[in-house]
């Protein structure tokens, strides 16, 4: 099956006043049509940067220094700006973390959804309004006529995120990127929001890239997982394979750090160390090496680290696999 989205050897750097941050380094992974993919990693591992690069909304300081992003075979990075603008919202759309601040504070939520619908559909004003009501009902916002007139500050975080999802799904995108969509929401609301995303995606055949640091949440929701560390993909495999037999030492460490109801707190283990400083010029080929319990001299040998298929559909980037 041809992938819906294929990221190939994508490298992104940021220019800061303290040096160049090598945020993504030859990053590669695919998303199949209709699949729910989890992108897992700790803060600073490059998950959001990847999403912004796909959407084409990286900020000014960022530079794409290599690679390509293919959407249905077409390289997004070579697309004309206008075509890319029109692609956003229809090809792929995004749901952000912090739903309150992700919405325009001084525009009614109905108008904000209507802006997106009107931009991509060319419907009449009346039809746009009807579509907004329909979208609000789809994300199960009670009393949509009244809520459409509300400002974000008048709605709860959960309702704001439903509005965000309605905006993202307004033009039936082929890919929905959800960047930590449940951050800052209480647990029951989190479950409801995840359920909503899953259900809407299944109904419309939309592929979902769920970006999260929460392995438990991803395991529950996703068909396949991509594990990121310091701007590299270290492992990518179907969820069951990752959970039952993690191959990369970082993935194994992550799994040991997830609390379970059965286990005791004492069994929890944090992954030792922290992400390397991505501004360093002497970053090792394996950026996990300095935290790795299995590090060997050959791990530090020069040359790029390859992401290799070690079993059907199971990729890992490690020179000393168990």
């Amino acid at each position, binding site marked *: 099956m041809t992938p819906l989205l294929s990221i190939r050897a994508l490298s992104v750097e940021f220019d800061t006043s303290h040096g160049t941050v090598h945020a993504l380094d030859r990053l590669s992974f695919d998303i199949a049509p209709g699949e729910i993919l989890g992108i897992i990693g700790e803060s600073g591992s490059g998950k959001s940067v990847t999403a912004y690069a796909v*959407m084409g*909304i990286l*900020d000014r300081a960022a530079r794409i220094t290599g690679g390509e992003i293919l959407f249905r075979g077409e390289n997004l990075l070579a697309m004309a700006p206008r075509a890319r*603008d*029109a*692609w*956003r*919202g*229809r090809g792929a*759309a*995004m749901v*952000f973390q*912090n739903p309150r*601040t*992700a*919405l*325009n*504070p*001084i*525009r009614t939520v109905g108008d904000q959804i209507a*802006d*997106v619908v009107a*931009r*991509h559909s060319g419907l009449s004003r009346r039809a746009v309004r009807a579509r907004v009501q329909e979208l609000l009902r789809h994300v199960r916002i009670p009393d949509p006529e009244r809520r459409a007139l509300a*400002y974000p*500050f008048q709605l709860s975080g959960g309702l704001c995120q439903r509005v*965000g999802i309605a*905006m*993202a799904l*307004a*033009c039936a995108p082929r890919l929905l990127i959800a960047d930590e969509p449940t951050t800052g929401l209480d647990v029951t609301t989190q479950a409801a929001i995840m359920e909503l995303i899953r259900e809407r995606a299944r109904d419309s055949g939309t592929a979902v890239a769920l970006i999260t640091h929460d392995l438990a949440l991803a395991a529950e929701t996703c068909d396949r997982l991509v594990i990121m560390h310091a701007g590299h993909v270290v492992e990518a495999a179907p969820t069951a394979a990752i959970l039952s037999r993690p191959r990369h030492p970082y993935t194994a460490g992550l799994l040991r750090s997830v609390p379970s109801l059965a286990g005791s707190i004492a069994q929890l283990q944090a992954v030792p160390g922290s992400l390397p400083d991505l501004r360093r010029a002497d970053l090792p080929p394996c950026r996990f090496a300095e935290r790795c319990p299995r590090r060997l001299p050959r791990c530090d040998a020069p040359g790029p680290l390859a992401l290799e298929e070690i079993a059907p559909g199971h990729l890992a980037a490690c020179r000393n696999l168990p």
Partner: protein
Amino acid sequence: MSRVGLRLLSAIPTLFGVVVVTFLLTRVLPGDPAVFFASNPAMSAADIAAVRETLGLDQPLYQQFLIYLGNLAQGDLGRSIATGQPVAAEFARRLPASAELTCLAFLLAVSVAVPLGLAAALRPGSLVDHAVRLIVTLGVSMPTFVTGLLMIYVFYVLAGVVPEPIGRLDPFLFEPARVTGFLTIDALLAGDRQILAAALHQMLLPAATMALFALAPLTRMTRAAMIATLGSEFIRTARAAGLSRGRIVVVYALRNALLPVVTTMGMVFSYMLGANVLVERVFSWPGIGAFAIDSIVNLDYAPLQGFMLIMAALFIAVNLVVDIVSAIIDPRVGH
């Protein structure tokens, strides 16, 4: 609307405070107005005492204050000892002249500053941004009397494209029937296009001089607010949804950025009203600033107190307008 009423009520203690402070301030100014008023070498100590008595300056301070309060309550701002005219009448004549000039200068400044700030914010660090910074720095670092004189020299003396920079209207033209005291509006009401054009022409240079000075804070605030807003999360959301650049800049960013700009506009406007003394002097503009300076020089208590009181009232009014406009822009204000 009840909020507006409440705000007006809360202005009363502020105004009373201003009355007390201006009264005391003028009294601690060095010099004796009676001596100044009776400035004639032939006058004896007895004559000076008589003058002091007529001016009411022989009474104890609290008594003077009570009399002043009583007069204020009747709308009487006192009498100028320099001109002999009631202060209220003097201000009624001069305030419209200052206000009209300030309004035009303010409109000029805003209509230039907001697009400039916007252009600079859309391309920070670009040539446009640097050019804007240069213009703005020049505008604020040149004293208004220097820019005023320069403008007169260039546009009146050299180019001859503006009328003689004296007063509000060519002396050979008749002023329109006085309704608002704003020459332009009165000319419009009277249907006199010629006077309207002449008044505007006369105002152009002093207004441009004032506007140049007001440009800096407005442009910088517009630029800063736009850059901050363009970097906020909801702009990222709008971009990810594929909204057009024009819509993002105008509907999403500019409207949000206007909030701090409106607050700055209020401050700039109030400041311009009071601080255009130099411009009024350079262009012989019969406004309140020039009058206030004369009053200080002449130790003329009544007009000075009146000036400060009127300025305080205008400040309060401008702040009220800013609050109302902010509430219109931002639904969160007042919640």
